[in-house]
């Protein structure tokens, strides 16, 4: 049993539930045709995203990937902003310019994800480089899928992070599939963590469905980074129990595999642990769910009532403004 104080564990549970409930609600909106783009959820993988983000401090930075709803919420993006983002509303963090989890906010230490997988990794190392140059004790955490690790940018990012001994922690959400592609068609190694050996980066494997384990391991690696000891690579084993997106039935995944992993659900697991630790009983857990439900309802109301952007706003913001003295 891991050693996490009650209040922290309950907060982790709250975020797990908030993430699950929010994404389920977004999926429902999608099925109602209210969301025009795609919906890719972190269903069954919430513990990774919540666990690592919760281990960071306020002025740290995350460079998340497309199944990181938990991290956004932990960093302070409100469910209302998030639903607005999915609905393309002006009140979303991108004001409708971008969709779904393609959002960021420097004030809350979040780099916006771009679709191109693994592009976020070199950028994450760049923030860490800034901290190193300026002698700040801040840390960057970033996340990548098993599939994303095949991209060249993964290689270049991990290599420079190690050569420069940067304060960055690489999380890998290994959910065994990249869209329809199973791990064995993605790489010839059984554990993604073996990739880290090419850079002399210490690697760890954790149960990605165990929020406590993710959290504690993340804490350790983040501390290492903060101490100036360089990057760590943490492979979080999990499974994508839903389709790649909500329009994918994922028939290509063996049914037994799905069944096996449904039992390992991170929320069920957290609930079991909370009870075993006597941190919460059924009633207490239920109260958290009620609180979450209310929040999500408020969020949806907020987002649905929010205005769409005006068409002409499409023209705004291509360039950042410059102080007058630079303009000439």
């Amino acid at each position, binding site marked *: 049993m891991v050693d996490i104080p009650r209040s922290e564990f309950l907060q982790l549970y709250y975020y797990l539930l908030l993430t699950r409930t929010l994404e389920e609600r977004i999926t429902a909106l999608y099925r109602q045709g209210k969301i025009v783009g795609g919906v890719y959820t972190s269903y069954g993988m919430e513990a990774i995203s919540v666990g690592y983000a919760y281990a960071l401090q306020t002025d740290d930075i995350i460079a998340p990937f497309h199944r990181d709803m938990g991290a956004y919420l932990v960093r302070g993006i409100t469910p209302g902003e998030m639903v607005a983002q999915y609905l393309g509303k002006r009140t979303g963090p991108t004001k*409708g*310019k971008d969709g779904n989890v*393609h959002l960021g906010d420097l004030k809350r230490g979040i780099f916006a994800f771009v*679709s191109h997988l693994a592009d976020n990794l070199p950028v994450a190392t760049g923030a860490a480089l800034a901290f190193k140059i300026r002698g700040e004790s801040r840390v960057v955490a970033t996340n990548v899928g098993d599939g994303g690790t*095949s991209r*060249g940018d993964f290689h270049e990012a991990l290599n420079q992070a190690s050569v420069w001994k940067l304060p960055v922690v690489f999380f890998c959400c290994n959910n065994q599939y*990249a*869209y329809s592609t199973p791990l064995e068609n993605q790489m010839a190694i059984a554990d993604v963590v073996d990739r880290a050996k090419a850079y002399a980066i210490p690697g760890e494997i954790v149960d990605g469905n165990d929020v406590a384990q993710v959290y504690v391991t993340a804490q350790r690696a983040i501390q290492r980074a903060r101490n100036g000891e360089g990057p760590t690579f943490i492979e979080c084993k999990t499974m994508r129990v839903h389709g790649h997106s909500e329009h994918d039935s994922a028939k290509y995944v063996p049914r037994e595999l799905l069944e096996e992993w449904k039992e390992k659900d991170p929320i069920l697991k957290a609930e079991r642990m909370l009870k075993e630790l006597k941190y919460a009983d059924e009633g207490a857990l239920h109260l958290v769910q009620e609180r979450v439900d209310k929040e999500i309802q408020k969020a949806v109301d907020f987002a649905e009532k929010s205005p769409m952007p005006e*068409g002409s706003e*499409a023209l705004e913001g291509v360039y950042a403004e410059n102080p007058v003295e630079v303009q000439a």
Partner: protein
Amino acid sequence: MTLATTQHEVTYLEAISEALDEEMTRDEQVFLLGEDIGPYGGAFRVTAGFQKKYGAWRVLDTPLSESGFVGAAIGAAMMGMRPVVEMQFADFISCAFDQITEMAAKNHYRWGAAVPLVIRAPYGGGVHGGPFHSACPEAWFFHTPGLKIVAPSTAYDAKGLLKASIRDNNPVIYLEHKFLYRRMKEVLPSEDYIVPIGKAEVKRVGSDISLITYGAMVPLALEAAELLEKEGIDLEVVDLRTLLPLDTEMILESVRKTSKAIVLHEDTKTGGIGAEISALLAEYCFGSLDGPIIRIAAPDTPVPYSPPLEEFFLPKVDDVLTAARQLAAY
């Protein structure tokens, strides 16, 4: 050959599948590679059932490595294979940019090694894909000697141009417009045919103004032409079909006839292909021009996600009407 024996109506998307299927049957050297094209049949299901039919090595699922698998296709092409790469979305072609521009495009010029390679790129907006699933990447490659670029607007052209691309000995960027996938339908010939690379087509003959365009803007232009007809303006619609090399002859011929030109594309304006067409006209057609050359294109921004923004961003029928009326007044 697995040619259908009777005439049949197919969508633009089905036309692409048919071309691939027929070419794979015709030529053993043709093979496909890309992400999730195997058992899954591709993000848009273009290759559904192909792996069963042709086996895992000719319909090859790749790791998530655009540069890697485009590079592999180049190597295989030099060994006499005819690889057809699928980009899951055209947007991700930026990850393979270096292999395309430095390796594939320059090979034949430098040392005479042909690279018969096709890169299929599902492109374009109007499907609420946002900044990373709506790209029109043509201008980048348009400025890269050694490449060819095609961009069909109909099911007929989609099939014929894909076959021509596969049989071509050069690297061809094949732009298939996502918005047209299921919207364009027509009855195709049952015999084998190609649409030659390098040949534009007048999709509507007109006498007053030449509108030069391609891709998803072709149906839009035709719609505009019908409305303009009622106002007594007779629009000629030239569908480029091939973007590189441009069919300069047909473009000039049309404008020499009408003496007025509108250039229309969905891609953003500055440095787009429309600029080249304007420039060609301004240099080689100057004496025939009776009015300014008007360009209609998306504004210089990334493609926004939210529907009102994307609608504002994309060129509209109204833009064509306004431009045509303005030119008609000259």
